[in-house]
């Protein structure tokens, strides 16, 4: 609490100070108890695993091998989310467009992709696309098949990007629509074009609204990146499942890989909180 923020001239009376102290103590108590509770829950989980007789030696022996798959997971996730963001912005502009063709394309994209399982889409990019290439080749587009025959990782990136792009299209659209109409009017009254209004005024404000749901999508995608294992990519979960099966110690391997994903997502969540804090600049209530 900052003294210099005081509006009233005279000092705060002692009984009010006592109340403030109580409120502060209650708040501090709560956050302390929250942290203790969380620690106890995590401890209970670890104790539970020890009681189950988990083979920690086995886990530590293979952790290096499994972590080698982390690179694939991160590569796929980061590239897919970047591409998904681009698709989402284009998709959202399409969904809000008054051009019927552009709007229809965006609407169809969202509906089709959200309406089909990601699993099917992954196979579509990997197994079915080459067949489409073959068909096009027969129709006279010579040489196209080799471009439509994607290796596992690019196929996985495309599948995830296109799928998450569709979900995020709706997030971005809602974010854009949440900005008050007066903002666009003020920009236009200055003489800005529609594109300038979007880029300088609407989008930066919408970004603040959509950061939490987009982070949510990103966290979901990091885990869905395990779907590239379907195509034989040796990423995190694929390695864990392989080793678990070979030595009949699936429990250890699954718990290990789950923990790795969890840590990754905790890191991402921290990054999200940082970004949100930064974006909150200019909002009422910042720094009290």
């Amino acid at each position, binding site marked *: 609490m900052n003294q210099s923020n005081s509006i009233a001239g005279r000092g705060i009376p002692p009984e009010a100070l006592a109340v403030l102290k109580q409120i502060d103590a209650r708040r501090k108590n709560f956050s302390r108890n929250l942290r203790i509770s969380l620690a106890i829950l995590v401890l209970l989980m670890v104790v539970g695993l020890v009681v189950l007789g988990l083979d920690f030696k086995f886990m530590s022996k293979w952790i290096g091998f499994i972590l080698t798959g982390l690179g694939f997971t991160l590569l796929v996730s980061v590239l897919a989310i970047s591409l998904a963001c681009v698709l989402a912005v284009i998709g959202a502009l399409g969904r809000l467009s008054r051009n019927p063709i552009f709007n229809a394309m965006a609407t169809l994209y969202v509906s089709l992709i959200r309406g089909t399982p990601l699993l099917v889409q992954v196979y579509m990019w990997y197994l079915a696309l080459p067949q489409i290439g073959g068909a096009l080749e027969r129709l006279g587009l010579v040489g196209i098949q080799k471009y439509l025959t994607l290796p596992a990782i690019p196929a996985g990136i495309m599948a995830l990007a296109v799928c998450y792009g569709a979900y995020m299209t709706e997030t971005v659209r809602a974010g854009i629509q949440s900005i008050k109409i007066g903002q666009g009017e003020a920009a236009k*009254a*200055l003489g800005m074009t529609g594109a300038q209004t979007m880029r300088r005024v609407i989008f930066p404000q919408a970004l603040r609204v959509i950061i939490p749901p987009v982070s949510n999508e990103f966290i979901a995608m990091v885990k869905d990146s395990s779907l590239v294992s379907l195509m034989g990519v040796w990423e995190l979960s694929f390695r864990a499942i392989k080793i678990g099966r070979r030595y009949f110690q699936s429990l250890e391997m699954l718990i290990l890989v789950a923990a790795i994903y969890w840590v990754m997502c905790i890191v991402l969540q921290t990054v999200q909180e940082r970004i949100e804090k930064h974006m909150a600049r200019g909002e009422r209530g910042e720094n009290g």
Partner: protein
Amino acid sequence: MSNNNVMVKIRNLHKVFGQDLHVLDGIDLDVSVGEVVSILGPSGSGKSTLLRCINFLEEPTAGTIEVDGVAIKAGEKSKDHAAKILDIRKKTGMCFQAFNLFPHMTAIGNVMEGPVTVLGQTKKEATPYAEELLDWVGLSDKRDEFPARLSGGQQQRVAIARSLAMKPKIMLFDEPTSALDPELVGEVVDVMERLANEGMTIIAVTHEMHFARDVSSRVFIMDGGNWIEEGSPEEMFTNPKEERSKQFLAHIL
């Protein structure tokens, strides 16, 4: 095509919302360079819509609007329609009842936004004039504050500076003091008055009596989508001719 002395020329302006909500009913208006016009009238009479038609925030349904020599006929299908609208908007500054400052930019950022984005100046080029304007509205010390940390009156003064940064030929004020606490009205009206004294052409939709009576050169009373009557402030406030004007003025005076 335009008389040098004419800033705004509106002929037979109609605005219909939806299929049948007839808000503006054949408005004519001429405003000369340097004139200060106040528009009064009961809510729903079409005042704001008229103002918003002048810079095409609302697309008129019929009629012509001419601002500083740029004339646009409603519904015209010409290729340069959009370009002419941008042209008119660059010549026109507008202040809104809700201020509509950009919350993600500081005060000076708001003021520089037009010159930087629309006129293509660098921030460095735009800064001195933006600072001068902030100083002119008395807010030099709030240069780097975000709008959320400013009072309503301060926000509206930044909004005026933001409009002035585009060096407009005419300022439109859409109930600029209606959202303000009474004690903050004065600081905004004061800025408007100084603007008028410096020769700015102004059209203001306002119920602020000091501005309407002492600052404006002409007062229009509007109802049902057209003028009831117009005249000098003295005539309108002391001796209105029309019964509806008298009724309306009795409510606000």
